[in-house]
């Protein structure tokens, strides 16, 4: 293994080709990511922060090889993943896993939790039967779910439990990089912090590098070591989390930070008399 960063992204550009017209020449294309570079070290928590349309999810999908970049390079552990061709090697699928935003649609509604977990174990480690079930039970324990959930369908689980199953599935191939695309934004605040704590524990215990993709600055501050702020397809500012939050340099970062709602009440109730302490 090389001593360099686990993931190295250089000058990445991704273009979406517009709708399939009848006339092939008349496609409108849109450059969602315009020359982005960053590194993620082994075990590091790296966050891409930005608003919708900033290109952060697109970068995640490129790293997951769910779409092909138009320019630049993505190097994982010394191997250029753009050189893979049509088929993605199973070893890369083992190393890089994903947790999506919407746990409801990211689990197959017709498969039990057991099926969801064991088919990944079978594919990557050739496990089957009792051995696979034992491993699936262990994975569930790792994400804090009791084993009786094995026979449940996703529809029988709450949003938080579904997201735990999705995390267990991502952990099954023993990845080194976990892409978390808005892992908590579909969850209630109470459940959000449960999942964020879980991810923090897993990162520490498994030395797992995480790429957090999020629009929520308050959440990112709790989980990331390094933050990159994206706007319109480029990184406008990046740095260690606390430095960036306490001393933002780019105007856009300042605007973003100022927009985060605080819990300090701003308005007074109509019947509150000025000057009287409530």
């Amino acid at each position, binding site marked *: 293994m090389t001593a360099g960063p686990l993931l190295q992204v250089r000058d990445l550009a991704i273009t979406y080709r517009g709708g399939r017209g009848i006339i092939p020449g008349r496609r409108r294309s849109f450059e969602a990511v315009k020359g982005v570079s960053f590194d993620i070290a082994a075990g590091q928590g790296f966050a891409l922060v930005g*608003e*919708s349309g900033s290109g952060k999810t697109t970068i995640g999908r490129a790293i*997951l090889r*769910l779409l092909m970049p138009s320019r630049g390079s993505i190097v994982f552990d010394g191997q250029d993943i753009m050189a893979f061709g049509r088929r*993605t090697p199973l070893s890369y*699928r083992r190393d890089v*896993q*994903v947790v*999506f*935003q919407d746990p409801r*649609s*990211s*689990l*197959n*509604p*017709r498969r039990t939790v057991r099926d969801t977990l064991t*088919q*990944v174990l079978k*594919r*990557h480690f050739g496990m089957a039967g009792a051995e696979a079930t034992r491993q699936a039970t262990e994975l569930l324990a790792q994400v804090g779910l009791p084993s009786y959930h094995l026979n449940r369908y996703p529809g*029988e689980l*709450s*949003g*938080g*439990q579904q997201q735990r199953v*999705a995390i267990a*599935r991502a952990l099954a191939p023993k990845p080194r990089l976990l892409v978390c695309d808005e892992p908590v934004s579909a969850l*209630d*605040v*109470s459940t*959000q*912090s*449960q999942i*964020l*704590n879980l991810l923090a524990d897993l990162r520490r215990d498994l030395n797992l590098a995480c790429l957090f993709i999020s*629009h*929520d*600055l*308050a*959440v990112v*501050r*709790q*989980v990331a070591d390094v933050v990159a702020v994206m706007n319109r397809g480029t990184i406008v500012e990046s740095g260690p989390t606390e430095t960036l*939050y306490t001393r933002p340099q780019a105007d856009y970062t300042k*605007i*973003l930070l*100022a*927009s985060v*709602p*605080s*819990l*300090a*009440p*701003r*308005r*007074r*109730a*109509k019947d*509150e008399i000025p000057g009287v302490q*409530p």
Partner: protein
Amino acid sequence: MSLATDRVENDVGEPVAARPSDSAHSFAAILRRPLTIVCLAGTVLLLAVGLFAPLLAPYDPNDANVLHRLQGPSALYWLGTDALGRDTLSRLLYGTTTAVETSFEAVGLAILLGVPIGLVIGYFGGWWDRVVMRITDIAQSIPSLIFAFAVIAILGRGTGQTAIAVAIVFGIILLRIARGLVLRERELLYVDAARVGGLSTPHILFREILPNVVGPLIVESALMLGSAIMLVTMLSFLGLGLDAETPDWGSMLDDARKYQMVNPFMTLPPGLAIMFAVLLFNFSGDTLRDALMGRRRAVRRQPREARTAAASTVKPAVDDNTVLIADHLTVGYATDSGRLFDVLSDVSIHLRRGETVGLVGESGSGKSTTGMAMIGLLPPVARRSGQVWLGDCDLMAAPTEVVARKRGSDIAMVFQDPVGAFSPVHTIGQQIIEPLQTHRGLSREEATRRAVELLDMVGIPDAAKRINDYPHQFSGGMAQRATIAMALSCEPKVLIADEPTSALDVTVQAQVLKLIERLSSDTDTAVLLITHDLGVVAEACDRVVVMYAGEIVEEGRVADILRRPRHPYTQALLKATPRNEAPSGRLPTIPGAVPPPWEWPSGCRFAPRCGFATERCRAAKIHLVDGVRCIRADELQLALEP
């Protein structure tokens, strides 16, 4: 979890369809219906006749006896004989074999042909998809009978050939359906997750996607069985389908037609057989659809009197500034098995002029149901009691037309998904102008001018021009402003906003919240802001109502409650809300999740998740006293550290 199999409640308060694992349950219910039993019995009978025709038939179907030609029913020939003196009953029974065999063959072949191709081209898209779809377009532009003629002209006559001809016609239909279903399914994240999981493409197509689309395909195939019988008999009626040796209903009918002047009875047996077989397959298809895809039952409105308990229809005494009152609102649903459960228990909320009230809680707390009740949009099946007073009108008891008139004029609503709130085929302008014309009686010019004013007021730049844009040309934030403009068009006294900023970016959220704030101070509109985010409450609200498991657990002024929560749930919620602060170890959480309505405890509903709960909390129902539903409120010191 026995009740979990019946129906669950989504955020909007409508009962959602049963989950996949519930199919066994609904299947049992469908099996008990008389029509199902008749269909099943009929299908079994038809298949049995088809299988055992040689045993049942009294004669050989091709055994001609010219002495007995064209006879009516008799003891010897129960259904008479045909022009060659063959026994009609025997031919009818053997014809059943032919009909069942060819239709099952045809549909089976159609499935094998259409479904895999549809799945593959739908999943991969690209050139193959386009080429195959153009071919099916051409094939479908030809009437299916003519298409079948062409196939038979090429392949020749015979049972197998007829089945192939019909299979191609139906295979194309199944191909298109399968492709359409896959197009929808492949956008779902579980397909991406399977790809990232390294699963092979055939595995993803046939083991992941296929089980999710198989329901509609089975139903369509079952309905096709009936059509297949029709098509096969039609072909042989025209003398094109089967060879002359094979007894079948179509050629029997053709024979009967030739001799109908001599023996009119001959048309009846094959005619009735075709009719009953087709009807049977169609009803069976419908039954299957109900079982696999959820019953589409007619919504039975409860009569007004039954819907609202006529307890106290007296409007509570309030000051003049109060514009909307929800008074002891209780909403429930009945399961199929007749058991009742409440999703909202005794909720009372007052909204005063120019005031913004936040309604917060986790999903499943009943906050959206409260919002829907307050605008008179509860689903008709909901059982309800209590009143919602808008001025002197009780929205819960008033006739539907009256409530509809109030909606859009006195009270308006803004939803979470701004783009979905607009019709995609009309311009933003049209959708604001038309209500102005109908509700306020403005002329087209006046209404247009007002619409521009409104869009300008909610901060849409270049409003006069953008009024001609379609909703998809607006960004999320712009669209949400436009929905607010639309809601405000008739100057409502009350605006109910259900998670208006949850789908928006933080910068846009800040702007929309400012807009709502300005609105209440400038136009004196009362706003009920439903949200899960206490940060939004802190930002935009005067008062806050905290809900948990269908009950109000705490209410009061935002300043008081955010600084000194008195209910443990409010405190827990506040602690769990992520703040823009440097991390300090583990994030505080609330253990567990909101229980579903049928599992609400009889004592304090939060007790199972509460760190302060005692035996006394679980013993009996806790009442809302002095703005807090907690018997330990006074002894607990819940103030948050600054």
